[in-house]
């Protein structure tokens, strides 16, 4: 038995590919997650998100219409977002470091590169439960701190330019 009550969680799975969506749902169900919502597009994801207010979002990147990046930016910054802090795990075929940075700069919490692996899915889920990142608000960004470790007590000037921020991470 899991020490966690995954059955208490509500998770939204967003992927325009039905096979990939079913695969992720199947894995989550095997973990013990009961309340799973599905969306096949970014537009539908936004509607479901506002109706169901999930605890975690597993989000595909590349979709027609609203992309995963668009959705995560809406989650973080749209005035109608039900929860700007909801953890977002991005699941994508993109594997380059530039793409990981792009996703992180949009406000995701965790990144999973396909192929989908059960262990990685579990470890990312545990990471958002056990090691949530502090949130940061700057003039140009709102979302999880893009550094792995941040000082939650920090109040003060931004010490990095956009370029140095990327280089540092």
């Amino acid at each position, binding site marked *: *038995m*899991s*020490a*966690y*009550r*995954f059955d*208490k*969680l509500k998770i939204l799975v967003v992927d*325009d*590919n039905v*096979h*990939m969506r*079913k*695969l992720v749902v*199947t*894995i989550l169900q*095997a*973990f*013990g997650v009961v309340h799973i919502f599905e969306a096949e597009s970014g537009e539908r994801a936004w509607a479901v998100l506002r109706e169901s207010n999930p*605890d*975690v979002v597993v989000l595909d990147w*590349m*979709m*027609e219409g609203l992309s995963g990046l668009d959705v995560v930016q809406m989650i973080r910054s749209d005035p109608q977002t039900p929860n700007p*802090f909801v*953890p977002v795990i991005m699941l*994508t*075929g*993109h594997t380059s470091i530039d793409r990981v940075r792009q996703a992180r700069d949009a406000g995701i919490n965790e990144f999973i590169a*396909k*192929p*989908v692996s*059960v*262990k990685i*899915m*579990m*470890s990312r889920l*545990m990471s*958002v*439960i*056990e090691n*949530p990142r*502090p*949130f*940061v*608000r*700057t003039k140009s960004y709102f979302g999880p*701190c893009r550094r792995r470790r*941040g*000082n*939650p*007590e*920090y*109040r*003060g*000037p*931004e*010490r*990095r330019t956009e370029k*140095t921020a990327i280089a540092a991470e």
Partner: protein
Amino acid sequence: MSRQQPIELFMPPNMLKAKVGGSFVGLDMAAINRAEAAMEELKSQFADWAQDDVRRLVAARDAFAAEPGSTTRAGLLRAAHDMKGQAATFNYPLIAQVAGSLSHLIHDLPETAELSLGLVDAHVNAIHVIYRDKVMDMSNKVALALSKELEARVAEALGG
């Protein structure tokens, strides 16, 4: 300048942890084994995924051939990219490799540069053959050589 930009860093309450309770006791191997078994079972039920994806890729290729432009090119990129992720997950690593090469070509080629239909077709045909012959591992030397050749042609097209 940047040093003067205000920054606010704060830790929202961990509602997730409060909800699931419990404490970290390492990876739950029972849940992982259960999920892996369920995933394998599902994969066997999804024998048609590749057929669907090949069909979708061919349709995207046909749309691009009929009317080359940013919309049809984006559709082709989505189809190739999806196939890359799916094929890797559903045990077709060579299809993933070729689809990855195609998405690399489309993504990295400047919008203003012409996307070679011949090179697109070479990828689509290779994927067709790998799927038709059900090459599900990396040991097929001909398919591997074809994949490497396509990657080289893409590097050439991208000026690499």
